C-alpha cells in the first residue's frame, strides 16, 4: 500500500496542503483530475523526486519520506517514456540492474526475459530515435520493471499514443500489473483509459484526494 499522510508541498503559487491518500495494495489504481491540479506532483512526491514540506509517505508499510528515489522500491514511467537518449533498448532495460552492480549474466537474462514479455526483443540494439511511441513506452516499462519494484507509478503513460496503440498498451499494463503483483498508480484524465485498467479510481480535486469508485 502507498500511504500519504498530511503531505504538504509548495512551489511558487502552487501548493498541496495536508493531502491524505491510500493506494490499495496489489490493485491497479487510477488517479484522475484536471490539468494543473497536482497529479504529477503527487507521483513525484511518491517517487522521492520532490520532498514534502511536511507529512509522511509510506510504501509497503515503510516510511520512505526521506529515502532517496532509488531505495523506495518503485518503478516510474513518465509521460513520453523519457528514455535515455544515447542508450540502446538493451542498455535501457539493464540500466537499473547495472547501477545495482548485478552480474552481467543476470542483467542479460533479465533484459531478455522482459524484452520478450513486452514484445521488444527484436529492438534490443535500437536507440530511442528508431522507436515508435508504443515501443518507447514498452521499453520504459521494461526499464522500470527490471529492478523488480513493488510499486509502479505511471504518469499519463498512454497520452502520447494513437488510439489503437493506446488500447493495446492499456491491456498490456493491466496484464503486467497482475502478472508481477504490482501496486500500480496510473495518472490520466481520460475516463476511457480509467475504465480500461482501473480497479480503483481516485480523484484529486481542490487539494484533496477522494476515492471515486472501486
Amino acid at each position, binding site marked *: 500500500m502507498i500511504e500519504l499522510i498530511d503531505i504538504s508541498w509548495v512551489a511558487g503559487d502552487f501548493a498541496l496542503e495536508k493531502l491524505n491518500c491510500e493506494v490499495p495494495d496489489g490493485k491497479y489504481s487510477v488517479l484522475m483530475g484536471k490539468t494543473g491540479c497536482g497529479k504529477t506532483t503527487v507521483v513525484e512526491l511518491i517517487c*522521492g523526486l520532490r520532498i514534502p514540506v511536511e507529512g509522511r509517505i509510506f510504501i509497503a508499510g515503510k516510511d520512505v519520506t526521506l529515502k532517496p528515489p532509488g*531505495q523506495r522500491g518503485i518503478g516510474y514511467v*513518465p509521460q513520453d517514456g523519457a528514455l535515455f537518449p*544515447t542508450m540502446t533498448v538493451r542498455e535501457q532495460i539493464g540500466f537499473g540492474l547495472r*547501477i545495482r552492480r548485478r552480474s552481467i549474466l543476470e542483467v542479460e537474462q533479465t533484459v531478455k526475459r522482459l524484452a520478450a514479455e513486452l514484445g521488444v526483443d527484436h529492438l534490443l540494439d535500437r536507440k530511442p530515435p528508431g522507436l515508435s511511441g508504443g515501443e518507447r513506452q514498452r521499453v520504459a516499462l521494461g526499464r522500470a520493471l527490471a*529492478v523488480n519494484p513493488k510499486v509502479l507509478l505511471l504518469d499519463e503513460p498512454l497520452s502520447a499514443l494513437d488510439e489503437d496503440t493506446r488500447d493495446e498498451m492499456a491491456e498490456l499494463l493491466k496484464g503486467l500489473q497482475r502478472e508481477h503483483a504490482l501496486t500500480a498508480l496510473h495518472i490520466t484524465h481520460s475516463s476511457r483509459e480509467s475504465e480500461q485498467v482501473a480497479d480503483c479510481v481516485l480523484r484529486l480535486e481542490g487539494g484533496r484526494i477522494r476515492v471515486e469508485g472501486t
Partner: protein
Amino acid sequence: MAEREPIRQGRRRYSPFWVFLVVVTGGYLLFILGMLFATATHSSPGELLKALQSRQIQHSIYLSLLTCSLTALLSLLIAVPAGYLLARANFRFKALLESALDIPIVLPPLVIGLCLLILFQTSFGGLVEKVIPFTYTVFGVVLAQLVIGAAFAIRTMRGTFDQLSQRPEDVAMTLGCSRGGAVWRVTLPAAGKGMVAALSVAWARSLGEFGPILVFAGATRMKTEVLPTTVWLELSVGNLEAAVAVSLLMVVFAMLVLVTMRWAGERW
C-alpha cells in the same frame, strides 16, 4: 470551354519576403567572403612560406595552438557545471547571476586585461602568483583567454541543457542513481554535441583574443606572443606581408576547427 491554366506552385518561393531574406543573408555572406578573398590575394604563397619559416612566428603558432586547446578544455570544465546550474536550478537572484556570468562577453577586452592586471597586483593576486606566476607569462595568456572563452562556453552549455529534458535523469534516480550519477550517465552523454560546440566556440574565441593578452601577458617574442600578437607586432613595424600571412593562417585554423568540430558533432 477554355482549359484552365495550371496553378504554378513554384512562384510562391520567390515572394518578396523570401527574396528580402536571401538578399540580406547573401549580402552579408558576400561581404565576409570579399574580405577574406581580398586578404588572400594580397599575399602570395611565397610570402606565406617565408612567414612560416620565421622562428618567432613558428613559436607563436605553437603557443596559440597550445593555449587555445588548453583554454577550450578548461572552459568546458567550467561551462558544464555552470551551464547545468543555470539550466536546471531555480533560485533567488538567478537572473543576476546570469547577467554577471555575461560580464566578460560585454566588457571591452582591453578592460578585462586591465582588470586581470590589477587583480594580480592585490595581496590575493600576490599570493596566487607565488604558486603560479600569471602576469606576463604563458599562464597569463591562458587565463586571459579563459575569462572570455568560458563565458561563451557557459552560454552554449546552458542552451544545451535547456534543450535536454530532466525526465530521463529523474527516471535514472528512481533506478538507483544519485543526481550526480544520473547527470554523468544519462545527461552528459546526450550533451555531447553541445560539449563539442562549447569546445569549438571557446577555442575560436581564444584564437582571436588579443586585448587582454596584450595588457595582462604582454607581447614578448618567443615568450607570450600568440598569433594575434604577431599580427599586431608585424603591423607595428610595417611588415604588412607577414601580418597578412599570419592572418591567413588564423583564418585557416579557424576554418579547420569549425569543420572538424561540426564533423565531430554530427558523428556524436
